[in-house]
C-alpha cells in the first residue's frame, strides 16, 4: 500500500505554476508525482522548543474533507455527490491547481495568499475504524488501528522533551472545559500531568479560590503529591491572573463557542504564557443529514476563528512561533447519502497554518475511483502530520511506532 514513504509536498505554492500545466494536461487524475524522496528537513534547534506553540484543533464528529478542500478537477467527486458537491464555480480558487476551498473558508484567503497555510491530503491509516470513539482514540494516541494505546501522543513527546522552563504555566491548556472530561479526556495530552482545562483564565482563577493553602504537616509521600498538585493549581491561577490583566481579547473573533476558544488561546499566546500546547474543539461535524448548511457554518466558524487567531498573533509578533493544525477521528464517505448528508468515512484533509509553515498542498489526493468499503484509500499516514509537528517543529527526536516508518511532511520552514 502506498503510504507514508511517498509523502511529498505535491503542491508547494512555489511550484504551483510549474505543476499547473501538468495538472490541466491530465485532468481528473490527480497527478501522482514521482515519489521523490522528501527533502531532508533542517532540524529545528531543540533549545528553542519551549518558545514554540502548537495549537491543535479537533474537528469533532469527522469533517468532510472532500467538501473542505474541494477536488474541483476530479470527476469522480462530482459523480458521487450530485447534490452535495461544491460546484467548481463557487469553490474559492487558490491558484492554478485542481483544488478549491469551500467558500465558507474565505477568511483563510489571507493566510493562503501570504503562504502560511497548508493542507495535507489523504491523511488516514490502514484498517480504518469508523467508530467515533475508537477513531479519536487512535488519532489521540497515534497508534495503528489494531493497537490499543493509553497516553496521548503529545504527552509522550513532552516526556522526551527535557526539563521545562521554570516558569512553565502548564504543559498544555485545553480551552473549552466542557468538551474535555468525558471520552478520551485530555485527548493528545492524556497522561500529561500538567494540563489545565478551562473556558477562560477567569474561569479557572475563580474556581481555584476553593483551594486554600494550608499549614505544614508530615505525612506519607502521597500527601506531598497532593500539596504539590494544590500549589500547582494555585500558582497557575495566580500566573493566569497576572496574564489575564494585561491581555484583552482582541476584536475580530467570531461570537461563537469556537470563536471564543480561539480568542482565549490567542490571548494567552500573545501574552507569552509559558504553555507549549493548546487544544481547541469544534464540535458538530457528524453531518449525516442536511449537511450543506451545517457544514458551511462549521467551516466559517473554523476559518473565522483561526484567521482571527492568526491576525492576533501576527500583531503581537508571535506568529512565527505558532503552528496550528486540525485533526479528527475520520473523514466522510465519498458518496452522499439520501438524507443530504455523508456517513462515516476514513481519510481526510487537514489544515496546518503558522508563521513558519510553508503554505501549499501536501500529501496526495486519494484516488476516488478505487474504493475500499466504499471509501477511498488513505495516501498519507496521519502520523506524518504528527511527526512534522513533533520533530520538525518541536524538535522531538523520537519516532512514532508505525508498521511502515513515517517522516515529516517538510512543511515547516527552517
Amino acid at each position, binding site marked *: 500500500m502506498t503510504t507514508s514513504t511517498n509523502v511529498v509536498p505535491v503542491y508547494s505554492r512555489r511550484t504551483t505554476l510549474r505543476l499547473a500545466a501538468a495538472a490541466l494536461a491530465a485532468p481528473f487524475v490527480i497527478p501522482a508525482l514521482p515519489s521523490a524522496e522528501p527533502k531532508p528537513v533542517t532540524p529545528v534547534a531543540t533549545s528553542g522548543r519551549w518558545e514554540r506553540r502548537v495549537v491543535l484543533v479537533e474537528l469533532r464528529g469527522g469533517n468532510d474533507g472532500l467538501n473542505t478542500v474541494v477536488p474541483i478537477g476530479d470527476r469522480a467527486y462530482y459523480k458521487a455527490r450530485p447534490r452535495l458537491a461544491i460546484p467548481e464555480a463557487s469553490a474559492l480558487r487558490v491558484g492554478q491547481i485542481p483544488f478549491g476551498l469551500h467558500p465558507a473558508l474565505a477568511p483563510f484567503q489571507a493566510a493562503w495568499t501570504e503562504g502560511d497555510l497548508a493542507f495535507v491530503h489523504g491523511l488516514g491509516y490502514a484498517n480504518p475504524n469508523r467508530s467515533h470513539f475508537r477513531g479519536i*482514540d487512535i488519532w489521540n494516541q497515534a497508534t495503528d488501528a489494531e493497537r490499543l494505546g493509553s497516553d496521548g501522543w503529545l504527552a509522550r513527546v513532552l516526556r522526551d522533551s527535557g526539563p521545562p522552563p521554570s516558569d512553565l504555566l502548564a504543559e498544555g491548556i485545553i480551552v473549552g472545559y466542557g468538551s474535555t472530561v*468525558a471520552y478520551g*479526556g485530555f485527548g493528545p495530552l492524556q497522561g500529561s500531568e*500538567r494540563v489545565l482545562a478551562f473556558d477562560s483564565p477567569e474561569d479557572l482563577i475563580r474556581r481555584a479560590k*476553593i483551594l486554600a493553602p494550608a499549614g505544614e504537616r508530615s505525612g506519607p509521600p*502521597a500527601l506531598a503529591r497532593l500539596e504539590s498538585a494544590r500549589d500547582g493549581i494555585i500558582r497557575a491561577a495566580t500566573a493566569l491572573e497576572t496574564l489575564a490583566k494585561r491581555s484583552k481579547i482582541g476584536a475580530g473573533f467570531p461570537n461563537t463557542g469556537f470563536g471564543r476558544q480561539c480568542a482565549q488561546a490567542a490571548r494567552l499566546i500573545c501574552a507569552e504564557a509559558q504553555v507549549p500546547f493548546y487544544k481547541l474543539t469544534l464540535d458538530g461535524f457528524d453531518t449525516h443529514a442536511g449537511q450543506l448548511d451545517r457544514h458551511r457554518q462549521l467551516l466559517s466558524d473554523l476559518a473565522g476563528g483561526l484567521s482571527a487567531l492568526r491576525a492576533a498573533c501576527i500583531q503581537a509578533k508571535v506568529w512565527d512561533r505558532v503552528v496550528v493544525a486540525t485533526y479528527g477521528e475520520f473523514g466522510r464517505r465519498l458518496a452522499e447519502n439520501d438524507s443530504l448528508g455523508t456517513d462515516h468515512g476514513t481519510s481526510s484533509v487537514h489544515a496546518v497554518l503558522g508563521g513558519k509553515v510553508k503554505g501549499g498542498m501536501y500529501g496526495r489526493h486519494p484516488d476516488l475511483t478505487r474504493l475500499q468499503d466504499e471509501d477511498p484509500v488513505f495516501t498519507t499516514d496521519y502520523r506524518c502530520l504528527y511527526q512534522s509537528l513533533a520533530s520538525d517543529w518541536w524538535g522531538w527526536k523520537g519516532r512514532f511506532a508505525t508498521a511502515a516508518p513515517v517522516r515529516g511532511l517538510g512543511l515547516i520552514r527552517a
Partner: protein
Amino acid sequence: MPRPPRSFPASAPCCFFAVWLVIGGLAGLDRDEACHLLRRTGFGVHPDDLAAFLPLSREQAVDRLLSEVRTVAATSPPEWATAKVLGAAIALRRETWREIWALPDGEDRNRRAEAQRRVEAVEAGDLRAWWMRELIGTPSPLTERLVLFWHNHFTSQLSVVQDARLMYEQNVLFRRQAAGNVAELLLAIVHDPAMFVYLDGASNVAGHPNENFAREVMELFAIGEGFYSETDVREAARAFTGYRTDPGTGRPVKDEEQHDHERKSILGNKGVFDGDGVIKILLTREERVAVHLSEKLWREFVDDELDAKAVYQLAATLYRNRYELKPLLRVILLSDHFWDRKRRGGLIRSPVDLYVGTVRSLGLTVRDHQALVVLARDAGQFLFEPPNVKGWPGGRAWLGSQGLLIRNEGLAAIRTGLLQRGGEREAGGMMGDPATAKSGAAKSGTAALPGQLDSAVLASLRSQGAAAAASMITLQLPLPPAPPITTSDVDAALAAIHGDLACQLR
C-alpha cells in the same frame, strides 16, 4: 481465637472512646487501625461500621470482611438486564441494527436509528446508575472495591462495546469472582462477549489472526510487559481464533471452523493449543501471572511503591493456593506492610472512592445516582468507561492537571445537597451520557433544610454538641487536619474536612 464480647451499642459514637479503652488494650483494634482497615478495604468509614469493628482483633476483622464478600449484587439490576433473557436480548439488539441498516437510506432509517440510539443511551445511563447504587448500598464495600479492581484490570469500554447488556454481564462476572479464583476469572474473560467486541475477537479468525486480545492477555491481563515476545503474541492470537458471540443466541461460542487447529509455540511450549490452553500454560508454567496480579493488588491495598520481596511472597501464596484470592487477600490484609503506621493515608483515593466514601460515611440518602456518576466522571472516573485498555492509571494520575480542584468542587456539590435534589432521570445524550444531569438536578426538588445536608450521621452528630465535630474529623481524615479544625459546628467542620488534603487519602 475467642471472639471478644460485643455488648456495646453499635450506633453510639460518644461511646467509641470507652470501647477503645476497654477492648483495645486487650484484643480489639484501636480507632486508627479500624478506620485504616475500613478505608482501605471499603469506601469511607461509617460510625456504625467503626463500632462493629473496634472490638475485633486484626484477624477477626479481616476474616469478617472476607466472609462477607458477595458474589451477587445486593441491589436489583435494571429491568432489561434480567439474566433469563439476556442472551436473547443481545441477539435481538444485533438483529434490530441489522434491520435498520438494511432499510433504504433515508428519513425512515434515520428515525429508527435515532430511536434505537435513544433506547441504548437510556440503558447505558441505567447501567451506570445501577452500579453506583450498588457501590453505595452494598453491605460489603470490599466486594465492590474488588469489582472495580477487576473492571480496571480486564478493561472494556461501554462506548466501544456499545451494548449495555454485555457490560452488565461482565460486571456480574467480576462480582461472581470478586474474591474468587484468578484462574477461573482469566478463563472466563477468554469467553466474555463484551471482551470479544472490545478487543476485536470477532475479527480474529484462522488465517487472519487479530492480535489485539492476545496482546492484552500478555501485556496487561496476565503476564506483564517485558516477559513475552512478539512471536508469543502472534502464536497466542492463533489460539484465540474463532471465539465469538453466537448471533442467534447471543452466547459465547468457539467456532471450530474459524479456529486455528494447527500447532502453536507459546513461551517455549509447543502444542495444539486453543484459548483455554494458552491460559492454562500461562497459569501453570509461568509464575508471572501470580506476580503480575500480586503487584496490582499490592498497589490497591498497600502502597504505590512496590516492595519486590514482599510482592514475591504474595505471588507464592497465590500460586500455592491455586489462584484462590481469599487466602491472598488474607495475607495482604494481615501483613505488617498493610498495618505499617507510616503507610496509613498513603494512597490517593479514586474519584469513586472519594465520592462514594463521602456518601457512605455520612449515611447520605442519594436520590440522584446519575448526578453522582457525573461527578465521578468529571473527576476522571466514568464507570464502565475507563480511558483505554490500560484502565485508569490511578495514584497521582488522579491529580493530573486540575484533578484536585474538580474533586473539591465535587465534594462541595455533595455537601450542598446535589445528590438529594431531583431523582432518577432517564439518561439522555450520547451513550447514556448523563451530562444533562446537573442542570436537571438543579431544577427539581429541594434539600431537607436550607444550608443543611440531610444526612443520618450529621443529624446524629448535630445533636451531640462540642465533641461531635472532633469525632467526625477522625472518622473522615486518615491524618490529623492541618490547620487544626477548631469549630464545633458539625457542618462547618465538614466543609473544613473536605478542604483538607488528607480527605483525598486513604
